């Protein structure tokens, strides 16, 4: 039984980056994590805009670029105002490296298969990020304005998650119908 524990811990580490932030992250680290998470979703959206011909998928991707850029611009303006320098950290690095793997996966797909994989990844990614923002970043943030921005950001990202769930559901229904 003892041998299983490290394997399980390793699995959680690899699949859930929020588990990585076991120590309370500092505000400069929180800012870096939130910013990185936004950039990652913009990166996925850019792949979708290159590869997808589906109108709903393209509209969703354009919305992701706009919204995440808007949140990141707010975050940048805030850290500048507070005189805080975002600090790279293990959680940001885990997010970035997992995203690189996912991007490579998505780039191997095209057509409806790409659309479904993109939609499913958007659901999974937003649910992971939202859990981390909700249970790790917001409670750990010490500056009030940073906390408030994270709270509004969380509502925006929860909206994206629901939107992505609807999109994924419609795409998989369409796929099931096409196989009948």
């Amino acid at each position, binding site marked *: 039984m003892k041998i299983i524990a490290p394997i399980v811990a390793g699995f959680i580490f690899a699949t859930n980056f929020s588990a990585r932030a076991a120590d309370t992250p500092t505000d400069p680290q929180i800012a870096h994590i939130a910013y990185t998470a936004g950039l990652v979703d913009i990166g996925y959206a850019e792949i979708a805009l290159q590869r997808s011909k589906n109108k709903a998928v393209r509209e969703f991707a354009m919305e992701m670029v706009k919204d995440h850029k808007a949140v990141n611009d707010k975050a940048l303006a805030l850290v500048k105002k507070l005189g805080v320098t975002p600090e790279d950290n293990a959680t940001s690095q885990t997010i970035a490296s997992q995203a690189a793997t996912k991007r490579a996966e998505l780039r191997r797909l095209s057509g409806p298969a790409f659309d479904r994989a993109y939609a499913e990844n958007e659901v999974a990614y937003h649910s992971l990020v939202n859990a981390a923002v909700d249970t790790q970043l917001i409670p750990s943030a010490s500056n009030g304005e940073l906390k408030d921005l994270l709270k509004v950001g969380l*509502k925006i990202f929860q*909206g994206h998650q629901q939107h992505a769930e609807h999109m994924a559901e419609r795409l998989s229904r369409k796929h099931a119908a096409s196989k009948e």
Partner: protein
Amino acid sequence: MRSIALHAALWWLLLLAGATFAPAGEAASVVIADLEFKPSTVTVRVGDTVTWINRDFVEHTATSRNGVFDVATPKTRPAHWRAQKVGDFSYYCRLHPNMTGVIRVTR
């Protein structure tokens, strides 16, 4: 003769301006802030106009579930919808479906 024509033209301009900038029977405003429609339920009468003012830093929509209206609510200017029939119109934001509200239209 010329001054009568001028007067008529001015009146038309005023009427047009009135129609464009102050919708007749304007009744309800909904403010969008922190991803919420406030108030979440508003009641208007047939012919009244609902105005949404978006104070968030992202764009939203006010989209009725029954397909009667789909209004973009940009950050830059207020958006309007004129109620044309009686009923409860439940609506949401297409971009952030966690945002919901109801427009109640009475006679």
